[in-house]
């Protein structure tokens, strides 16, 4: 299957979404008249967009449905049973929540952790840069895919602080604090890295989440690093 480059994709998209000027539209339609492959691409993209719109419409209909609840006089026996079931579900849910509720470390981590948004990606698919692929996966929350691609690149460039930082971030985003730590600490120790401060903060949070309070307290922030004050506040809450 041949690739469809981004400019062509976006021209087709503009045509399907009726966002072309009259002249451009005419020229595009003239080209379509003789270009069978382009015509096929237009039809495929039109249907894919329609599929996405159908998904949205069905979601919208579900929301509208919720505004028209069922009448109470139907199925009286069933609704009574449902009430008891609902009460039971609430009780069970409450018990489960109490049993499984996050501990203080996890609560503090959740309160202070904001995932790094990643680096901008500005390339087309045909360029095939693995780093950008990995960064797109990172931004989409496909943590394992991102880690796999960053790790492969790290083998080729073992000194890269960028790769280590984002592997650590992806591990932390995926909830694997212990696996994030070695990567983040390695970057935090590189004083000249542009990621050092952020890596130090994320390493601190990873330690908080892991419950290693002493190690978290041992993380040293630079005097002018605002994360230092935030870290002290977290530690005081842990006490």
């Amino acid at each position, binding site marked *: 299957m041949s*690739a469809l480059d981004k400019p062509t994709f976006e021209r087709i998209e503009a045509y399907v979404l009726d966002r072309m000027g009259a002249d451009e539209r005419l020229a595009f339609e003239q080209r379509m008249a003789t270009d069978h492959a382009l015509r096929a691409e237009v039809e495929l993209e039109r249907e894919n967009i329609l599929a996405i719109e159908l998904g949205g419409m069905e979601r919208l*209909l579900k929301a509208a449905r919720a505004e028209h609840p*069922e009448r109470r006089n139907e199925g009286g026996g069933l609704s009574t049973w449902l009430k008891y079931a609902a009460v039971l579900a609430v009780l069970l849910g409450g018990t489960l929540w109490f049993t499984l509720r996050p501990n203080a470390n996890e609560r503090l981590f959740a309160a202070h952790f904001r995932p790094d948004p990643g680096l*901008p990606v500005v390339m087309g698919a045909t360029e095939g840069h693995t780093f950008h692929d990995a960064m797109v996966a990172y931004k989409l*929350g496909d943590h394992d895919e991102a880690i796999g691609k960053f790790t492969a690149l790290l083998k080729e460039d073992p000194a890269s602080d960028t790769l280590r930082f984002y592997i650590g971030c992806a591990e932390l985003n995926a909830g694997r604090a212990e696996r994030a730590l070695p990567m983040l600490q390695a970057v935090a120790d590189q004083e000249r890295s542009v990621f050092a401060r952020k890596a130090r903060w994320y390493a601190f949070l990873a330690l908080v989440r892991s419950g290693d309070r002493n190690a978290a307290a041992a993380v040293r922030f630079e005097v002018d690093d605002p994360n230092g004050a935030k870290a002290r506040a977290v530690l005081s809450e842990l006490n």
Partner: protein
Amino acid sequence: MLVGQAKRLSATGTCGTWTGLRIIVLRFFLPVEARDNEPLAEPNWATGLRCNDAATVRALYKQHFPAIRQYVVGNSGTTDDAQDIFQEAMTVLWLKAKERSLAVGSEPGAFLFQVAKNKWLDVVRSAAHKHMKVVHDEGRLDVRAETPDDTEEKLQRLRSVYGQLDEKCRTVLDQFYFERKDLATIAAGMGVEEESIRTIKYRCMMKLRASRRTIAGEANTSGT
């Protein structure tokens, strides 16, 4: 009926982001010669559906669901059944509006009722509901063409395509193609750069394209 509720319509009938005020402007200032040369104007409710307008959907729901509920409940169904049937009928109406294939002068209430009635009669006549008694069954053959099989097949195919998208892609693509938000708005909402959203959208659409081409390729291979 639904006057002024349709939105996102430009003078050429495209969907964008605009408010009902622009409808008023268009109505009063469209050149006379342009109106004379145009075919019958698309009704606002059809434009609203075509532009995925939430207010239009809610208004259609509010206005036309009661008749369908009455029919379904009067024919051994429940309000829940009526909701299911009405939603399916609304989806058919939406698709027709999208494809601009609604007959001239189509009235949404009549269309929805006919489609919903056919669908409910299919349910009632199915093996699981043979014990039900149909009270209103007149004129069924006359309205069968409202839900041709190819519409149902197309809806199933589209649902299957949508099902191939993961949650992250849906988040971006829904906002761009369904809600018609611009890239900058989506980027601001997700806390990333506009160019990243543009690339993510492209990548997600290419994934969809690749999977559909693979399926099509497999179908062709198995057919030879």
